[in-house]
Every structure is written in C-alpha cells, then in structure tokens.
C-alpha cells in the first residue's frame, strides 16, 4: 500500500499545492497524472492478488470465513484508494467553480480534463473491487427475488443524464404481461445491466439510437440491447470478454474504459448459469444478448 499512498500523495501535491504550475499546464502533465493514477491502481491490484486471494478448497466450495476476510480486505483497500480521490475531486470541482479565485478558460479546460480522469479512476477502483470479489468467487451471494424489468428500468433511469448529454434515443420494450420474479444477486445483476447500458451509450456517437428489450423465451429470460455505435472489429471479437481487453477502435475514440466491464459482466452471468453473446459490425452497431434461466 505504501507505493499507492506515495503515488497518490504526489498526485495530490502536484494538482493542489502548485497552482502556479497551471500557467504552464501542458497536456504532458495530464498524461503524467494519468500514469501515476494507473500505477497506483496497479500496485493496489498486486497487493490484492498477494494478500487477499485465499485458495478455494479442492471441491470448489467456498469457505465463507475466508471469503468474508477477503471482501473485508478489498473493501478497506478500495476505501483507502477512494478517499484521496474524493478529496481531489472536490478540490478540482471547487477550482473549476472559481472558488479559489478566477481562472482562465484554458486553465479551466485542463482542470476539467483532470477532473474527468479522476472520475475514471474512481470508477476503475470500483471495478477492481468487483473483479477482486468475483475472481475466486464463482458463487452467487445475496440472492433475493428480483423483478428484472424493474431492475433494468432503474438502470435506465440512472443513465438519463448521459443519454441527454449525447442526444441518444433509448427505447426499452418490455412484455405486456409482467415477467415472473427471479432469484438473483440483485447488486451484481444490476452491475451487468449498468455495464451493458454504459457501453452502449459510451460507444454510440451523439444522436444515435439504442434499443433494449426483455422477454420470456421458454424457461429463460432474454435481454437484448442494440446500439448504433462504433461496433467491434472482426479480428477482436474473440477477446471481448477478456480481462483488461479494449477494442482498438474503442481506444481510438478517446472514450475512457478499464477493459473490465464485460469481463465482470460475463463472470456474473456465468455465476447465474446464464449466457452472453453478441453480434456486431464495425461502424454499424452492436447487439448484446443475455439469457438467464428462470430457476
């Protein structure tokens, strides 16, 4: 954790204690900060791998106590990382809001970019928590009865700002008859839909269209989400669910991503004995399909 703390302290010092540096703020500084941020996440990840990964017993059954310990460790580590990030976020926001005196548009522009990177870092830290919790745990915890239309609707509601910002039209079709309740891990399943909607919005150009639907297919629930986005290049299709993988065209759009979203999504769906696959054509759009068994 030492390395993480040093990196973050340095970052905070750089951003906060040297306001004069902003006069010569070049893009290279933004890169330096990003690199520092990524280094600290990397160190944390190594730390979690070393310390927090108990072996599962040979019969594949989880050991609740060990799992509990691991989750506690990871959430503590995540908190340690998130705390300085929240402070940096708050200070940048106030900087941009002229709380510490008027700053020029050019300075504001750079600060906004740092602010965005910092937000990326916050969600990256959250993703790491999710990955670490999933990795040795192919089991599902916290099962409860979930009405999937409601779950999807709540995710859509939370995306409104992004949709408006990019003027993307979203259509969500649900069956006339209410779908039966399903026994799921609600928190994790919410993450699945959150990731799928986030991706659709992120990789669809402004003014595009997203169509989502959920329906009953025999003893399964099928969820489909189609976007008019950048699509997935043919030669990269088989790597889509790999940890830390990002499509080359996705990286080129300048959209930030951790390469963890779909990995997490698939792990959760696997744990629920469901399936996920996609069809895509570059520059035309992507359709993701998810099926989940009713029982």
């Amino acid at each position, binding site marked *: 954790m030492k390395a993480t703390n040093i990196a973050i302290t340095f970052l905070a010092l750089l951003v*906060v204690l040297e306001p004069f540096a902003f006069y010569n703020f070049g893009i290279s500084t933004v890169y330096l900060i990003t690199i520092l941020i990524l280094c600290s996440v990397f160190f944390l990840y190594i730390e979690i791998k070393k310390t927090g990964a108990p072996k599962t017993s040979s019969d594949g059954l989880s050991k609740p106590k060990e799992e509990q310990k691991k989750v506690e460790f990871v959430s503590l580590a995540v908190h340690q990382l998130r705390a300085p990030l929240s402070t940096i976020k708050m200070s940048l926001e106030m900087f941009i809001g002229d709380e510490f005196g008027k700053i020029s548009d050019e300075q504001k522009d750079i600060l906004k970019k740092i602010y965005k990177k910092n937000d990326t870092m916050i969600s990256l830290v959250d993703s790491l928590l999710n990955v670490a919790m999933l990795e040795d745990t192919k089991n599902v915890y916290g099962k409860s009865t979930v009405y999937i239309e409601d779950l999807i609707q709540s995710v859509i509601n939370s995306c409104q700002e992004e949709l408006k910002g990019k003027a993307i039209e979203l259509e969500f079709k649900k069956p006339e008859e209410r779908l039966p309740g399903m026994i799921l891990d609600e928190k994790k399943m919410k993450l699945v839909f959150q990731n799928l909607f986030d991706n659709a919005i992120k990789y669809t150009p402004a003014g595009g269209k997203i169509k989502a639907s959920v329906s009953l297919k025999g003893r399964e629930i099928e969820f489909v989400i189609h976007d008019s986005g950048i699509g997935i290049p043919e030669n990269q299709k088989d790597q889509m669910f790999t940890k830390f993988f990002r499509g080359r065209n996705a990286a080129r759009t300048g959209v930030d991503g951790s390469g963890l979203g779909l990995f997490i999504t698939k792990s959760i769906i696997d744990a629920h004995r469901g399936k996920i696959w996609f069809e895509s054509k570059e520059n035309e759009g992507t359709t993701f399909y998810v099926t989940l068994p009713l029982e």
Partner: protein
Amino acid sequence: MAKNILIVEDDDFFRELISKRLSSEGYDISEAIDGEQGIEKINEGGIDLIILDILLPGIDGFEVLSKIKENPAVSSTPVVILSNLGQKEEVEKGMNLGATDYLIKAQVTSDEIVNKVKSVLK
C-alpha cells in the same frame, strides 16, 4: 446570528475544502479531527448541524452518531453523514441510527453539500 456547523472529518484537506465552501456561504464553522473530539465539541453545545465522516481514527462515525442520539441535550441536532462508504448496508445503518441524510463523497459536488445544509437548516 450565523448558524454553526461542526465538521467531523479526519482528512485535513477535505475538511479545509468543506469548511472553506461553507464559510463562504456565511456559516460559522467548527472542526473536529476525530470522533472523540467531535463528541466533545457537540457536548459543548451551540452546534446547529453536524457533517460527519464515518471512517475516523478511534471512535467511528456510526458510534459518534449513536452517542449524539443518546444524549437528550443534543439528540435533535441534525447529522448529515458525508463518507466514502457507499454500500447499501452502510447507508441503511447510518439512516437507521438517525442521520438526517447520507451523502457519498465521490458522488456529491460541493454545491450539493451546500444545498443539503441549507435545506436541513431551513
């Protein structure tokens, strides 16, 4: 007379930011760097609202909150939790202990904190 807000927060810089922002809105600010000092200052009286962090050295924010609610002299003082902990269980725990609201640091802006304070003190 200006309302007095107590900020219980162990992160010096974060405390400074919130304090600066709220005093520019015309509030008087008291600060505590841990739970124990927080309780002392609350018991001294004259506090109109408490902004409380959860992860603190020594006594944590949940315990500070319970202690406030146990003391009839100060139990009606509104407490707004401002923490990095954002799990459903943690939010529920804070609200069940009698917090007026629960804000998650990485998800709020300083304006939202100011608005929250204003609406609670109305």
